[in-house]
């Protein structure tokens, strides 16, 4: 059964000049429509056995000689499809900067300290109800070279598979009340009505007292197309 089309009213354009590197990298020709076949409606499976116990805990999985610095946070939510159905047993991978806004990636030469106890990468599987949970440190903002005095808002990168390669999604979670959002070309590239769904929601319900603040970030993937096929 095919999936709903990618809703281009919800996704950024492939060439978006305020985000400068799209100008030479975004395809210029219209995408060619592809009627979904078994190639598109299938995808890789992962199992909880593929993961290590601390894979979803970025405050633990990078430790060398102590705890990472910064605000400990919980990021949790549900992965659903457009029909509101949970996406169970699906792999989520995340990566982010440390509290100072520095990535361990060697190419990042921003003048902010590395944290020897923080790598910034993690993953987990959604459970049978589509729920997921990560423990991490709130990532700092960092400068980038897109335009003078450009800063990326605090964000966590998310990669999701869903049930098929057609449902694959890479996105970023932002934080509420961040003053950088209205000036960030990447965030602004999302159509206006869709932007809110990129922002995590602070929640006292998932905040763990005396331990970590909680943010809820639900993600919606493409759903099944229930339209009967005309013979």
């Amino acid at each position, binding site marked *: 059964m095919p999936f709903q089309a*990618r*809703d281009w009213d919800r996704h*950024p354009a492939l060439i978006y000049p305020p985000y400068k590197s799209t100008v030479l*990298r975004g395809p210029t020709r219209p995408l060619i429509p592809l009627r979904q076949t078994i190639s598109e409606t299938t995808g890789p499976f992962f199992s909880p056995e593929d993961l290590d116990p601390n894979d979803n805990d970025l405050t633990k999985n990078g430790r060398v000689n102590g705890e990472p610095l910064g605000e400990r946070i919980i990021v949790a939510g549900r992965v659903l499809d457009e029909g509101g159905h949970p996406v169970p047993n699906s*792999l989520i991978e995340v990566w982010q900067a440390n509290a100072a806004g520095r990535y361990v990636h060697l190419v990042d030469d921003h003048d902010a300290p590395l944290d020897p106890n923080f790598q910034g*990468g993690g993953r987990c599987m959604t459970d049978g109800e589509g729920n997921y949970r990560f423990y991490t440190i709130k990532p700092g903002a960092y400068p980038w070279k897109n335009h003078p005095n450009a800063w990326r808002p605090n964000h966590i990168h998310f990669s999701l598979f869903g049930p098929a390669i057609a449902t694959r999604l890479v996105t970023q979670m932002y934080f509420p009340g961040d003053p950088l959002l209205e000036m960030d070309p990447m965030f602004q590239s999302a159509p206006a009505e869709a932007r809110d769904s990129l922002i995590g929601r602070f929640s006292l319900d998932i905040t763990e007292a005396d331990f970590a603040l909680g943010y809820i970030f639900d993600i919606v*993937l493409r759903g099944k197309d229930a339209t009967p096929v005309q013979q």
Partner: protein
Amino acid sequence: MSHKQTPSQTVGPYFAYGLTSDQYGYRLKSLLQPYTTDDNTIGERIRVIGHVLDGNGNPVDDAMIESWQANAEGRYSGPSGNTGFKGFGRVGTGSDPENRFWFNTIKPGALEDGQAPHLNLIIFMRGLLSHVYTRIYFSDEIEANSHDLVLNAMEETRRATLVAKRQETPQGIVYHFDIHMQGDRETVFFDV
């Protein structure tokens, strides 16, 4: 539909230590690799390799390419899938001296529905706000390609951008496939 799709955002330049950690020498144990087989996988061993080029024809050194394919019998891996053959590979273009992507795999068979053998590619990079899909077909599958409905649905010059060139080398079979993000030879990207 009661819910709306979460917008895509770019993968950015720093995915490697999270998504392709082993390949780049970072600490996290990788779940996915540029190879899709183990020693027991049945099929013709091939390497698929090529450049990712931007609008100026320059190599993209921070792309991530994923590949999904059927096995030699033309079957996709399922939940209780064939041991060792996952059919899914992932590679970054940052470690190769020429910034190429590559996959070490087996040649997929033709599919039951008549589609010619192909790899399904997903492309991510800094500067790409939504990922794009393409396919790699094989130059030696002339008969199968001529009947493939997806290839036949587009005009000939664009069709040519989807066919990898077979080369027999002492080290084995290599298929060459460059991905052109823009320009005269812009690769076909699909709205899947």
